[in-house]
């Protein structure tokens, strides 16, 4: 009755993997210098100290606030961040005059880690985020459209996705990604029942009702606006994809996903017909060599990956600087060149593992908001990684998204670390132990139905020991559940034991006769209840 399903905390595992990740990141940095100069850089202890401080601080905050958080997310993210830092440093070395963007990136890593710590320390229950559905939605949309404000937004490399505030530039879409995930999750928790209602059928697929199409059309128009005015394919795909995926997860109706794909295909085709920047992207995807100058970046990236081969040239021995924007958009091509396909595949797998841990949290989550939020954050992360890595490797048309945790840029780093903080908070609540309600209580209630229980004899026994009353109400679950108590209002799938209708009144009036003890009553003669056992009775 008082059994509890729990996950081990595994903080030791996290510490070990974190140390491993830092060693790998440092390894890339040191190997670069060993390969280029045959000597270690004089400042390497400082770099190690900086990485260790960040890692230890994050680990300590997790130990303090989220002892049950997923042990893998932090090391995986730290590994990507470390490899990204090493690669940016390596690309710095290839510039003349030498740039110092790795130092700046390290500073941003520290700021992002602090942001992540703040999320962990102050957001213990992610469900408070559920309250601000429409505020979050409006804030997210405003962030998304911010680069269109004249004087604030600037056009860089053909896309208008940056804003400038004094000396700082910032990509608001990275933050909008988080805010809109939260907004969609809380919106869909409220509305999913309506959105799941079936309308007509077409080709064996249940279509949604036409009147429920408002939200998806709104999101479609918003993403088209991003495509048209900001000229950014990636951001447009990211937000529409996020909404459609969450809609599908919330309603379990494939028709939403199909509808979303059709809408997206229509939008993409219209974009291709009417906008030259989309045509450029498509041509650099399908026939890059038809126009060498226009598609220079994609072609250089391809050459880099091809030159790297299976095992790569080794840290610091390739020429990834030949690709324009190697530190930001094309950092994956630089990895592919110096670590080879083996290294690039490993990096992709690590991204996949982060997504898998997020989806796992979503599967185990008990409240619908946590489920949707974890799924949304993982999906938006997955779509982003897929779009940019697919673009670099020419699986998809290139989009201007950042490579999370790796490419140079402070806003992306901070937003993604905050996302990690949110995921950690969710995994902590999901993995903390809670009392388990017996799965099929009806069965033993039914088994008891054949037993004649003397009502008078057992009533006081039942009254005297309240523990013997089976946990049939959510309030009884709450007694044993230490951490997140599932609110009874939520339509979560906690199996709540309600006595079956066909159980006779004899049983329900005398639950003391074995109600708390499913299998012990079998074969017992109810009359022994009042009679002393025969043999040793005399001794007493």
């Amino acid at each position, binding site marked *: 009755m008082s059994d509890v399903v729990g996950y081990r905390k595994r903080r030791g595992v996290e510490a070990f993997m974190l140390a491993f990740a830092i060693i790998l990141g440092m390894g890339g940095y040191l190997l670069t210098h060993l390969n280029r100069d045959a000597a270690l850089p004089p400042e390497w202890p400082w770099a190690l100290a900086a990485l260790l401080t960040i890692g230890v601080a994050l680990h300590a905050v997790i130990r303090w606030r989220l002892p049950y958080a997923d042990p893998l997310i932090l090391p995986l993210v730290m590994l990507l961040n470390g490899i990204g830092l090493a690669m940016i440093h390596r690309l710095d070395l290839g510039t003349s005059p030498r740039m110092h963007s790795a130092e700046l990136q390290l500073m941003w890593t520290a700021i992002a880690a602090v942001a992540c710590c703040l999320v962990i320390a102050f957001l213990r229950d992610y469900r408070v985020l559920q309250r601000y559905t429409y505020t979050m939605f409006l804030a997210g949309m405003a962030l998304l459209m911010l680069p269109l404000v004249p004087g604030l937004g600037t056009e860089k490399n053909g896309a208008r996705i940056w804003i400038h505030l004094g000396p700082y530039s910032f990509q608001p879409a990275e933050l909008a990604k988080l805010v809109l995930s939260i907004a969609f999750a809380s919106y869909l928790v409220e509305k999913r029942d309506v959105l799941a209602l079936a309308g007509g059928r077409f080709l064996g697929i249940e279509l949604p009702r036409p009147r429920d199409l408002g939200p998806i059309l709104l999101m479609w128009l918003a993403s088209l606006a991003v495509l048209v005015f900001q000229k950014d394919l990636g951001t447009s795909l990211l937000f529409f994809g996020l909404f459609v995926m969450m809609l599908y997860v919330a309603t379990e109706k494939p028709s939403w996903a199909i509808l979303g794909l059709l809408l997206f295909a229509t939008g993409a085709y219209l974009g291709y017909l009417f906008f030259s920047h989309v045509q450029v992207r498509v041509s650099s995807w399908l026939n890059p060599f038809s126009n060498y100058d226009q598609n220079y970046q994609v072609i250089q990236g391809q050459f880099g990956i091809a030159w790297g081969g299976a095992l790569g040239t080794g840290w610091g021995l390739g020429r990834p600087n030949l690709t324009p924007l190697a530190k930001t958009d094309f950092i994956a091509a630089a990895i592919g060149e110096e670590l080879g396909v083996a290294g690039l595949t490993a990096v992709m797998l690590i991204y996949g593992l982060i997504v898998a841990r997020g989806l796992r949290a979503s599967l185990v989550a008990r409240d619908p908001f946590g489920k949707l939020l974890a799924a949304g954050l993982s999906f938006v992360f997955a779509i982003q990684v897929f779009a940019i890595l697919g673009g670099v490797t020419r699986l998809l048309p290139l989009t201007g998204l950042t490579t999370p945790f790796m490419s140079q840029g402070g806003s992306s780093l901070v937003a993604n670390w905050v996302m990690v903080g949110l995921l950690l908070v969710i995994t902590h609540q999901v993995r903390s132990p809670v009392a388990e309600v017996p799965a099929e209580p009806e069965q033993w209630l039914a088994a008891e139905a054949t037993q004649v229980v003397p009502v008078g004899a057992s009533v006081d026994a039942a009254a005297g*020991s309240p523990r013997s009353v089976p946990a049939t109400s959510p309030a009884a679950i709450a007694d044993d559940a230490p951490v997140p108590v599932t609110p009874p209002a939520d339509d979560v799938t906690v199996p709540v034991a309600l006595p079956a209708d066909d159980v006779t009144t004899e049983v329900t009036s005398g639950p003391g006769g074995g109600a708390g003890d499913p299998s012990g009553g079998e074969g017992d003669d109810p009359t022994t209840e009042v009679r002393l056992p025969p043999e040793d009775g005399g001794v007493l």
Partner: protein
Amino acid sequence: MSELAVLGLKVGFLALLWLFILFTGNVVRTDLFGRKVSAAELAAQGGAPGAKPQKISRRALRQLPKTLTVTHGKQAGLQLPLGEGILIGRASDCQLLLDDDYVSTRHARISRTPTGYQVEDLGSTNGTFVNNQRITAPTPFGIEDTLRIGRTMMSAEK
């Protein structure tokens, strides 16, 4: 550096990277299903707030009985330490497994409190008797007391 060393370091780095992924996979595997923890164990870990085992002074501890001895019944003579408390019944997770037809699966529990041991009935069919009185609530259980469950009698000893 020699080319061989460069190659060795390159392959070594990639091997470590993949070893990291293998380790991760192993953690994912061992983490797959979670595990069942009984509420008592959870309390012992400090997982449940307010359920931490209370501190007992060493002097009071010396006054407490240390073993439970079965005095009558099929298993007469059996002794086991009381420790933090024991669960009595026929289920395999009970510390005292009684071979007795009148015993329920999880029949009774002896647990340690700051004031000494106490017995509580876990909703058994045939009841738990302390000094021949059927108990309906957690009852103190000390050295002088006898406990009867089914046809088995037990007493606490130093």
